[in-house]
């Protein structure tokens, strides 16, 4: 039962990532693209958690944690660059 739920969840997250990619390519402003990248990272974390549940291994949690940290730092650095024209002052 968990396997079937994981397959359905993987398909749903794939469709969600496609919608995010649509916003990433079409987005009118640069901030729309930053928001789309952030959402794509969150979708990837969900996908990694589902795959870890599907393969019955705890090995992927470090990957999810790293994705969360790198995604946050990327978004904040891009926004900081747009705000102040500099990242580390």
């Amino acid at each position, binding site marked *: 039962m*968990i396997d079937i739920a994981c397959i359905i969840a993987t398909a749903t997250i794939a*469709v969600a990532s496609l919608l995010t990619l649509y916003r990433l390519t079409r987005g009118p402003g640069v*901030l729309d693209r930053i928001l789309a990248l952030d*959402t794509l990272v969150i979708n990837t974390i969900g996908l990694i958690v589902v795959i*870890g549940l599907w393969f019955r291994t705890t090995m992927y949690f470090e990957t999810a*944690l790293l994705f969360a940290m790198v995604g946050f730092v990327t*978004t904040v650095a891009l926004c900081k660059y747009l705000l102040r024209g500099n990242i580390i002052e």
Partner: protein
Amino acid sequence: MVIVEVVISLLVLVGSFFLFVGSLGLAKLPDLMRRLHGPTKATTLGIGSMLIASMLYFWAVEGNPSIHELLITLFLFLTAPVTAQMIAKAHILRETRERKALPDTGRSVGWATLDPAEADERSEVTRTISTP
């Protein structure tokens, strides 16, 4: 044990549904300030539900409880509001139309996004550092 598996499957499905809703809101809503709602609220709910499912699985079925999921949940719940606020600040700074619609702050200092130098000068932290 069957009940636990049903609960885990439902949590995984609910989590993926909320991830989908967040991305749908990002793709469909007309304006950046409205687009911010979808990802930052629904995806934290989706990821939280998925991590609860994973924690429940490794605790109840496999028999070894892990705290990695709690770390990811804590980190995401701490960082999601910060990200949303940074994007909103940059949006207000870049769009002239948004800037004109802002109300007055009611103080001697303007919005921190719009005059950062003045706001930095008068802020509590800078004052305590600069005055000996």
